[in-house]
């Protein structure tokens, strides 16, 4: 008689689980009379742009890593951290849903489900048909339209154009091609090309990119450092930070030590900047590049 019992138990458990489905119809309808303009952003580039336009985001993803990799502008204290970028915490958002979730194409797999909680808008400066700069301008204007910050956006764009023009002026005589790289480990770098803000800077100024090889959808290629010798005359600009331990390993790296740029002191370092970011990141990168490209500062200055 006891033989049937375990399976009964099993079915009972599953039935209990299933009975929860009865609550479906009661669905979430919170957030009816919450204050307007509370925006959550899962993409750092959007978060950066929101802050730059003077909007205080309601929630942003992975703030500790934002502080390390994007750095500026700083996310306000009052902004909620909503977890990893590709998985904004829905239990958290559901308790007091924002009026809008801005997400990027990279992090959206099932937006229809999120839309039951709050309006969702895919805003991105990648995954578009436009080149980086035009796409970023469009993204900035789109965010401005949604948040009613059109004048701030135009001001930011004007300021960025001015920074770019100033950079073009300052870099007029920069004839030496350069590699802009970020270290992955002591043997490999990401070298940047067309398709992100570095490509924009190369096309808007007299700077020439020493890297002419293929790049991926985010505008970089992962290469071993010996390929930085393909253009022996080039300068090398390194975006900080070094991954941990790399600095010491480079001292023992015979290729690095023998690269013409290293031997002849044509290596410079610039502060961390998010190469896939928005206009503020672009401005910071432009200023940093001008600072290390114009005569004066010692090349090896600022080594991490």
């Amino acid at each position, binding site marked *: 008689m006891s033989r049937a*019992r*375990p399976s009964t*138990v099993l079915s*009972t*458990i*599953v039935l*209990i*689980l*299933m009975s*929860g*489905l009865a*609550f*479906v119809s*009661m669905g*979430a*309808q*919170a957030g009816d009379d919450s204050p307007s303009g509370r925006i959550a952003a899962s993409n750092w580039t959007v978060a950066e742009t929101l802050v730059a336009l003077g909007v205080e985001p309601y929630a942003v993803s992975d703030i500790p*890593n934002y502080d390390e*990799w994007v750095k500026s502008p700083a996310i306000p204290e*009052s902004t*909620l*951290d909503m*977890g*990893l970028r*590709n*998985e904004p*915490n*829905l*239990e*958290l958002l559901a308790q007091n849903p924002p009026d809008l979730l801005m997400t990027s194409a*990279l*992090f959206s*797999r099932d937006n*229809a*489900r999120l839309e039951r*909680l709050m309006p969702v808008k895919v805003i991105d400066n990648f995954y578009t048909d436009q080149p980086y700069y035009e796409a970023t301008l469009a993204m900035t204007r789109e965010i401005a339209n949604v948040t009613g910050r059109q004048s701030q956006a135009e001001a930011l764009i004007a300021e960025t154009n001015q920074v770019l023009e100033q950079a073009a002026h300052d870099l007029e005589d920069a004839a030496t091609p350069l590699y802009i790289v970020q*270290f*992955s*480990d*002591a*043997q*490999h770098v990401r070298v940047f090309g067309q398709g992100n803000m570095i490509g924009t800077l190369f096309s808007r100024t007299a700077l020439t990119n020493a890297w002419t*090889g*293929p*790049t*991926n959808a985010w505008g970089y*290629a*992962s290469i*071993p450092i*010996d390929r930085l*010798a393909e253009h022996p005359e080039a300068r090398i600009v390194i975006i900080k930070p070094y991954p*941990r*331990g790399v600095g*010491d390993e480079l001292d*023992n*790296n*015979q*290729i690095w030590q*023998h690269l013409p740029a290293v031997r002849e002191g044509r290596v410079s370092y610039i502060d961390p900047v998010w190469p*896939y970011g928005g206009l503020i990141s672009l401005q910071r990168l432009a200023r940093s590049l001008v600072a290390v490209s114009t005569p004066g500062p010692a090349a090896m200055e600022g080594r991490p």
Partner: protein
Amino acid sequence: MMLRAKTPVWFAACLALLALILGYATLETQFADLSGHWWQAIVAPDDEQIRQIVMHYTFVPRLLVAMLGGAALALAGCLMQQVLRNPLASPATLGVTSGAQLALVIATLWAPSWMLAGKEWIALLGGIVATLLVFALSWKRRLAPMVVVLSGMVVSLYFSAINSALLLFHQESLSGLFIWGSGALSQDNWDDTRFLILRLAIVVVLALLLLRPLSLLDLEEDGARSLGISLRKLRFAGLGLGVFMTACVVSAIGLIGFIGLAAPAIARLSGARTLPQRLVWSMIVGALLLLVTDLAVQQLAPFTASLLPTGAMTAALGAPLLLWLLPRLKVGGTRPTPSTGLTLPREARPQRRLWILAGLTIVACVLALVVGFRLDAHAKVPSLAGLDDLALIADWRLPRVATAAAAGLMLALAGTLLQRMTGNPMASPEVLGISAGVAIGVIALMLLPLGIAPLSGSVMGFSGAVVALLVLIVCNRRSGFAPERLLLTGIAISSLLDAMRAIVLASEDPRAQQLLSWLGGSTYYASLTSTAWIVVIALVLTLLTLPLQRWLTLLPLGAPTAKALGVDVDRSRLLLLALVALLTVAATLVIGPLSFIGLMAPHMARLMGFHGARHQLIGAGLLGMLVMVTADWLGRNLFFPYQLPAGLIAALIGGVYFMWGLRRL
């Protein structure tokens, strides 16, 4: 039977010729400008000529390191296979590689100053810790082959789980370790070459000293013991050498998994019989295999924007080779003797335990629904949900809890079916390669720029599973789905997934994090609709599985016995296989391919004394649900608002229990 292949010479000669052609091609394409100065660049490069420096410090050491690494891994694999008398044994099986990787990740994050002391030593430490753990777990069983391999796989899965969790949170800081982890052989000085050559020489000398006693392991266990050999010491020494060699390779050039398994197998298949022959030919084949792969990778490098890591490419190329080799591999005779099998306690009153388990599972489900974090102004406080939170629970917690439970149930059932069908405690849906097939399909979809409907994820996953299943059937039809061959086929398919995963991670694609999260088994994307479907599917498949207990009781007795008792062995195996496939596909599509539950739950059920087929099925199913639901709750709340995938946590919980149970054996 193969017509040629009396000796491995021909195979090795073909590989060597291929290596020469590829090597020359690489010289011609990448160092054409140095033409005529090649020898000078190798021996005495001109310090002012960067091209000569590059050739001197990258091309030449890379060639040597590839050969040394391949030979060393093959030697390690050969030693391990001899000691464990199991053609499935390889450096990865013992957890050495994942132990080494975990040690490096931890050191990178929390003790970067240790890295200055030399990262090979940290990797070595991790590898040794993993091996000691494996030895500790199998010590009471006198390091019996099956128990060692089982412990090794558990330790390996456990460390990889911790590893993945850390990578999820620190992707940007650890990107370099992805490259190392996938076995990029890039060199920038001669240090690795010197490091490897010295250690390989030492290990070869020690292995030669052990040659005679190790050869005697070919005899049956009792025979060897009657010759006065201390089996425990001999195994310890043999395994120790293999582990040391592996740790050296891993620390110098990263994870290169396939060579240690394939080279000894190829050597044996192509005619190396005695242990000395197998050692020598394994090393030669291993060296040439890695060299050819690396040269091919270097030929491809200029055409892509992402790194092609050699270690991962070896696995990608090696998997089809292994599949081709399978029908030609004699594994039947190497099954462990009964003395090494697992004997388990039998519970007198399994019914009561089942009820207790069921009660626990219900409590866990309710708690997982009710307990969570509340947002109070800007603070996040843990609290019980009240009646007014029904919407929150139904919308955002129920789907995840129910999906976790359904997936846990299905994986546990699949694992039980598989272990009983094959009579092999290492069997699990993951080992069979079906979850890997599903994952390969989904990754392919993620990477291909196809803007198809959202449903296509399941379509691609299902196609992957069907392809994996077809491969399984095609490769195993002739042998009547013999258990060992089935497992080997599965391992070959899984290694393809590992290769794809490593290549994606090393390419530094920003989508890697998404991939990691899915591979870890996250319930994040569970919706009420998908949950309803998955629960119904789980129920139907469970009902289909329960009546099969007669087969499940008789099949473990062996094919002849089962046949004598009136079971159509081939047909029942095929049907069970289909059922396992369905269970695995359904579970993997919602919760990713990390099916640690499929390995754990049946074992836990047996350790708890559920010995009969029916009791084990139900017990394992309940345990699978219990562990998965608990894991999902922990994953959602441990680091709120950051979430860890349920599969990962399940591996961490299940692993501890499993190691404890293994220790008690």
